[in-house]
């Protein structure tokens, strides 16, 4: 286990050390201690390493992650795992706004609750929230899957494209062009897999699925002539 103590080294040195880990590094297990809410911790990683952050983080922890597995033993500030490409990010506590924003791939697991705009503009990432999510989540979400074991706030999936949203609890309101959809066997299969990988204690049959009504996909023109 390699330990990076942010009480002793600067953010730049910490990230540069992690960036220096190549594809075949032997140093695969890292621990970051004393994060003290710093921003941009472990962002831009691109190696199959495991990083455990012992505490809470500020903005953009694990931003643009590729390959790495990052476990935050605390809560995460805004934009955790934003634009993630691959790998896994697990947050033991809660996540602030924009968790998983614009993510292209990988798995983001939030064991607590997520604030507003969770999964905004997601582009292929899978997000599993054990608790509830705030308003305007999955706004303009393009693809990927979002699983919410608790409740969803106002305007879920506003201006949604092709992302799939699964909510077990209540939905305060749906956003523009978001609609409840039929849960088919392939969706239950996706749900089952994600719940298992995220360690969530819930049954796929308890969820409802939401998706795009596809009414905003083209401008409506009145061809009166």
């Amino acid at each position, binding site marked *: 286990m390699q330990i990076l103590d942010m009480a002793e080294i600067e953010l730049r040195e910490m990230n540069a050390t992690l960036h220096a880990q190549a594809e075949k590094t032997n140093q695969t297990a890292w621990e970051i201690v004393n994060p003290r809410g710093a921003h941009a911790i472990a962002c831009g990683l691109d190696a199959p390493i495991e990083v455990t952050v012992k505490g809470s983080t500020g903005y953009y922890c694990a931003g643009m992650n590729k390959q790495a597995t990052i476990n935050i033993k605390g809560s995460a500030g805004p934009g955790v795992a934003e634009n993630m490409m691959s790998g896994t990010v697990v947050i033991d506590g809660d996540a602030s*706004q924009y968790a998983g924003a614009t993510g292209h791939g990988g798995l983001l697991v939030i064991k607590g609750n997520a604030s507003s705009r969770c999964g905004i503009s997601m582009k292929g990432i899978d997000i599993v929230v054990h608790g509830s999510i705030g308003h305007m989540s999955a706004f303009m979400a393009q693809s990927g899957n979002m699983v919410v074991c608790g409740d969803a706030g106002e305007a879920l999936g506003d201006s949604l494209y092709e992302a799939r949203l699964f909510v077990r609890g209540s939905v305060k309101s749906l956003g523009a062009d978001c609609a409840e959809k039929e849960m088919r066997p392939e969706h239950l299969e996706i749900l089952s897999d994600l719940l298992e990988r995220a360690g969530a204690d819930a049954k796929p049959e308890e969820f409802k699925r939401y998706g795009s009504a596809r009414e905003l996909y*083209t401008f409506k023109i009145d061809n009166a002539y």
Partner: protein
Amino acid sequence: MTDTTNGAPRTTPIQSATFSNPINAEIRRAAATGIYDIRGGGAKRKLPHFDDLLFLGASISRYPLEGYREKCDTSVTLGTRFAKNPIKLDIPITIAGMSFGALSGPAKEALGRGATLAGTSTTTGDGGMTSEERGHSNKLVYQYLPSRYGMNPDDLRRADAIEIVVGQGAKPGGGGMLLGQKISDRVAEMRNLPKGIDQRSACRHPDWTGPDDLEIKILELREITGWKVPIYIKVGGARPYFDTTLAVKAGADVVVLDGMQGGTAATQDVFIEHVGQPILACIREAVRALQDLGMHREVQLVVSGGIRTGADVAKAMALGADAVAIGTAALIALGDNDPKWESEYNALGTTAGAYDDWHEGRDPAGITTQDPELMQRFDPIEGGRRLNNYLRVMTLEAQTIARACGKSHLHNLEPEDLCAVTMEAAAMAKIPLAGTDWYPGKPNTSY
């Protein structure tokens, strides 16, 4: 004209200036279709512009440089504030961001080729970075946009600079638009969207909401790229003093300021013509912000929006810009709106010089299209050569003016080299009206 029944003189029919023929035609079009007019390009209305400024030239008190012999440097370095690797350009005329999707792949390649030949940079757009663009651009600026289409850390690290787009002159406060005709398989794949939909990009970034957040976002981007490349912030011409101040506060290396004449691939006509300020009104305010912060020349200022000639370049730099960017002019140099396609423009219900339905993807010149047959009309090598020629002419023109003003570098041009020929231009650019030492709003003057 007389009345046919009694021979009395009749009144002459008078068209309303308020309800003019173009206005009435637009009312009828709106009534027929139920949708606002969408088009490309920038503001077409007449605005105070660089044409309303003149250089004074040399005189007894100013000593000119020999036009063809004495050195007049044109180089510029962008991103000297924080980046390990600032961008060094031979000329201060860069190519503005234009997306793959709005433009064809060969057109993007031509921009890279031309810019590289001329020793300057080109810029990606809302569609991500294409391999042909990266491959043919010696210096490539990677735009970081609200949509984040195609955004990934590999391309981020392959870029020579990152431009965080907060807004653009054609539509400050508006997002992009790419209609279904241009969402081809490749465009759809790069943007992760269903093919053929009318795509509307987000107007604000998904994961930050103000200048304090932006400062942290810049920290993240610098950490991901190892503090190597410059970070630009691009803003539309809305509130240039405050936007520049906040961009500097957030940590920008370069501020890119785009006036309302700056083009767009597609947006609502009402947005293009009625939101934002002309670039002439923006430059001095941005420079004042930089000076108030002690950052003029430390944070470089790139201006765009209606730059067409070397005279425009020289005037922008005399007002305090470090460099300029061109978009629409570059497309015209490539062959956009060329009269040789007049019959085809006519068939589309328009004429060369006025064609702006770029969103429809039927560009006869093969530039603003994803149609394979139309794209074949455009040769990227020839396009690159034409762009390089045009950039060289603009540079020579700017040097001609600078030498006439006695300047050994374009950066030495200054407001004192200029006069204004209209009151509006004098007020906006804070340049004395010709024949006076006064401009409207000049401090310590009574009117």
